[in-house]
């Protein structure tokens, strides 16, 4: 073997080792923070569904505080895990299809305030992840959140914006022993109905996807849990 071939191999080996050591070091030292970010993000989303105004302890947050929490991502985000552990408990529901699934329950003074369950399904380009929060009546939407999706920014991507998620609040999924299918309108919702939601313009397919997976997941949780626990 020629001398410069040996040099080439030696150089390649050194640069590979140096780069991988450096990256391993960085990754190792940042992993803790990254995992905490993910955990906080997930808890924020569960809380958005359970109680969009964070009104568990009686005093709702002001609009500015909510903006700080959710939109600008400013601390007091650090308080969220504490908030989460103090008020939220997680139960497991045995779905008929798909096995055990999470159900988050928000309680205040031992009384259930709201329930939230994860739901996900296809939008136009990507899987949209969501948490759906219901009031203690297990029928009215208290809050909803869409996140971690790859929809077109400005069109279907608007589903992760507060204005769209606010459209779902107070909509009824269950009445008089029957499911009320949630529908997402093209444009403005019909004010006569209780389950028609203002849609996003230019994002019909994302809307249809959301409509489909929210209804389907609600149905599954309803059969497994809400049905038999509902008071009326």
């Amino acid at each position, binding site marked *: 073997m020629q001398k*410069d071939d040996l*040099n*080439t191999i030696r*150089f*390649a080996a050194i*640069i*590979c080792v140096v*780069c991988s050591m*450096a*990256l391993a070091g*960085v*990754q190792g030292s*940042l992993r803790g*923070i*990254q995992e905490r*970010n*993910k955990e906080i*993000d997930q808890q924020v989303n569960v809380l958005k569904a359970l109680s969009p105004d964070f009104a568990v302890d009686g005093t709702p947050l002001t609009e500015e505080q909510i903006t700080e929490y959710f*939109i600008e*991502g400013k601390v007091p985000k650090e308080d969220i895990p504490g908030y989460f552990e103090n008020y939220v408990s997680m139960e497991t529901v045995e779905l008929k299809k798909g096995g055990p699934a999470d159900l988050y329950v928000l309680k205040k003074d031992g009384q259930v305030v709201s329930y939230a369950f994860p739901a996900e399904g296809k939008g136009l380009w990507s899987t949209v992840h969501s948490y759906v929060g219901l009031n203690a009546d297990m029928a009215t939407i208290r809050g909803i959140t869409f996140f*971690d999706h*790859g929809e*077109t*920014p*400005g*069109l279907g991507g608007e589903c992760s914006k507060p204005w769209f998620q606010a459209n779902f609040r107070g909509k009824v999924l269950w009445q008089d022993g029957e499911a009320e299918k949630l529908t997402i309108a093209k444009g403005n919702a019909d004010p006569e109905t209780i389950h028609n939601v203002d849609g996003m*313009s*230019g994002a019909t397919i994302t809307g249809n996807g959301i409509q489909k997976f929210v209804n389907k997941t609600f149905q599954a949780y309803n059969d497994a849990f809400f049905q038999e626990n509902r008071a009326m």
Partner: protein
Amino acid sequence: MPAINKIVLDPLSDNNPVTVQMLGICSALAVTAQLPTAFTMSLAVTLVLCGSNTIISMLRNVIPPKIRMIVQMVVIASLVILVDQCLKAFAYEISKELSVFVGLIITNCIVMGRAEAFAMANPPKESFLDGLGNGLGYSAVLIIVATIREILGAGTLAGIQVLPSSYPGNGLMVIAPGAFVIIGLLIWLQRSITKKYEEA
């Protein structure tokens, strides 16, 4: 050797990597729907460019010629992963929106192009400045495009409402073809001011 201020200032307009050399167009389309993502992306590319140019320039006399491009790639990829990890740790919300585009800085032709064309032949200080200049040139285009797209597309700037909220938003501006139009107009504007064209 070119004068120091020319190294930094040249890529801002006369030799801009995006509008003149037509490099880095993909990310200029993808991350410019809103100002904050464009700004973060600009910062990331500038950091990577400065870092990779400096490191490669320091190694330029010991890199075996046969594997020089692979070595450049390893250095660039390591720096990009580093930036990506830092964003995930310290700017989680923005890193979620940028998603794969930070990783794709590895394939941004500007970075590799400057390493091969400049850093392999010049000392570290000049190479650092060349990286800085090209990074700023790229950033300038991204920020101009993002400003126009966000205002016309959503009526906001960095999330703050600037047009009356009755403004319906222009759907073309929020998708990639809108960025094509803006970049095209920008190139036209720039060339009609500087009067520099390439003979076709």
